[in-house]
């Protein structure tokens, strides 16, 4: 079924919000005001949004160290996220998690994760809970081409098949496992065939094309929500920044980033498709751009002004009971 204008506007707004959130962070991190390692999602927006636009608050996602995009796409409050990254007391996780550990269970975002490969088995657990609930909920494990080589991820895929769980392993192939090429580190070079070998539905699409991701997910989600077991989706995407902010990226080829920005930008692709298929007036998208810029500006201003935690706060939340 074609997307409604409202759906199109919303999807574009989500992608643009992620893009500008990350572009702004790239600048703010360079000032030294933000603590911690930050891994930007810029370039991969069509994946998070193409998947999460299908999900309800009570569907679960489990994210990665590159998690800002998943958080925004799943509905985390953008200002709360910015405050969290700035380490503020009223950040989404009271400043305790930071960029790599943003979570909000109220929107089904079970957490970004600083450990590569830790997420997929957690998503299996959420899948068990989803199945027991019986309402057709799903659990999504976002992983990269790096995490796909972790033993934890293999265990998770096999367990999801054995238990026939509504879990979707979304592999974002941005072609770099941290600083090492995925063509080198993924032995079979084909994550989809490997996932199929576990005995699950395994599909792939262009992760820089929102419409391709969205359409594929329609089909895969139908499979999972109907109780037919887990699935794997490999999405070919691009990382516009380094592994972390400050990464000199000496492993990239000459002109690579410029070429990716020119030819593999999912926002440009969205606009091109919208224009070619006459889906929506581009002026509407321009208006969204302006609104998003305001939102990000406001988030940064609020985050900077927000109170910092007190030292005593650190002793809270280690245990449920003391």
């Amino acid at each position, binding site marked *: 079924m074609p997307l409604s204008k409202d759906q199109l506007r919303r999807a574009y707004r989500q992608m643009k919000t992620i893009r500008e959130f990350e572009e702004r962070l790239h600048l703010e991190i360079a000032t030294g005001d933000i603590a911690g390692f930050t891994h930007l999602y810029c370039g991969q927006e069509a994946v998070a949004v193409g998947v999460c636009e299908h999900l309800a608050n009570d569907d679960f996602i489990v994210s990665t160290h590159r998690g800002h995009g998943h958080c925004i796409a799943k509905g985390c409050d953008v200002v709360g996220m910015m405050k969290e990254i700035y380490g503020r007391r009223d950040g989404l996780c009271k400043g305790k998690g930071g960029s790599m550990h943003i979570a909000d269970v109220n929107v089904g975002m079970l957490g970004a994760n600083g450990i590569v490969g830790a997420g997929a088995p957690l998503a299996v657990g959420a899948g068990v809970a989803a199945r027991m609930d019986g309402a057709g909920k799903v659990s999504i494990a976002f992983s990269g081409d790096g995490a796909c080589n972790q033993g934890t991820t293999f265990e998770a895929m096999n367990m999801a098949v054995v238990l026939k769980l509504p879990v979707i392993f979304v592999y974002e192939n941005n072609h770099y496992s941290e600083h090492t090429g995925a063509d080198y*580190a993924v032995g079979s070079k084909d994550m989809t065939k490997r996932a199929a070998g576990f005995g699950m539905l395994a599909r792939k699409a262009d992760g820089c094309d929102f419409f391709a991701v969205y359409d594929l997910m329609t089909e895969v989600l139908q499979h999972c929500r109907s109780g037919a077991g887990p699935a794997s989706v490999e999405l070919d995407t691009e990382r516009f920044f380094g592994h972390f902010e400050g990464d000199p990226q000496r492993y990239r080829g000459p002109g690579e980033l410029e070429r990716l920005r020119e030819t593999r930008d999912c926002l440009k692709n969205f606009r091109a498709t919208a224009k070619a298929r006459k889906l929506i007036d581009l002026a509407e998208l321009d208006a969204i751009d302006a609104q998003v810029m305001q939102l990000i500006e406001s988030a940064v201003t609020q985050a900077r002004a927000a109170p910092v935690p007190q030292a005593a706060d650190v002793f809270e939340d280690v245990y449920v009971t003391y």
Partner: protein
Amino acid sequence: MPQMNMIQALNSAMDIMLTRDPSVVLMGEDIGYFGGVFRTTEGLQRKHGEHRVLDTPIAEGGIIAAAIGMGVNGLRPVAEIQFADYIYPGFDQIVSELARLRFRTAGDFFAPVTIRTPCGGGIRGGQTHSQSPEGIFTHVCGVKVAMPSNPYDAKGMLIASIEDDDPVLFFEPKRLYNGPFDGDPNKPAVPWSTHPKGEVPDGYYTVPLGKADIVRPGNDLTIVTYGTMTFVAAAAAAAMGLDAEVIDLRSMVPLDVDTICTSVKKTGRCVVAHEATRFSGFGAELVALIQEECFWNLEAPIQRVAGWDTPYPHAFEWEYFPGQARVTTALKAVMESA
């Protein structure tokens, strides 16, 4: 004498061992083509080849397990775990295999594996890039645990670890990679080139595991520490004008009990300091041991300075980090007790 920071010193140690011993093989994530996230293995794959410096997929459990298999079969693997916080997928392999191989085969097998891993906080890394898990491994019988505090020791200890027939977990306090750090993040960074321990010979030498370093001799009290806290504690004592004897353990297993106890018997007062959390931390072992050996010489209860008993937080780094203020409190308590 050449000047090196800790990264260059570790690189030199591995370069020398790759050259001297054809059984030495490096392995880890991003260590070869890329040269390591901290540049510790920069240039080594280019110089020694892809078969001596292996780029592995992101798979810590697999890296450590493979290193054990290599070690049993005549190689001397030096595995890098990119951050100590990533070591836990390999924990079973370390505890159940690496530490016990020799014992359960009555000496038939051994695995001379060195696992290098950057550890510790003070670089605003948050909870998965700042931990100090060395104490956990001191509780595992059958692995040695070492942590250098300066470039000279780092090179000599890494060579000693690679040559050691026992497995060694080699923790590198990453806050000290580029210079000594006294716990004050607001001071300009001090490079190793201004410090005597930044003078590092180009060639082969070893610094044995199991021999503590008396960083500063003194008579008022003994500070037993290692890693980054060596500099933090020494600076706090100096600021108070105390004549402290500062002992850098260099290795926790084996532990230089003689140096510790000789010092505490002399001074009668002791502060134990580490970055790792306090409860069941390695400091607890030190305190127990010192009271067993030196009880009748003690003039005051031994004080511990440690990380707080919480996960490493994102936003409170300098409240959490056991800086000079917390050391000072402990020093005062020890000195003021009758």
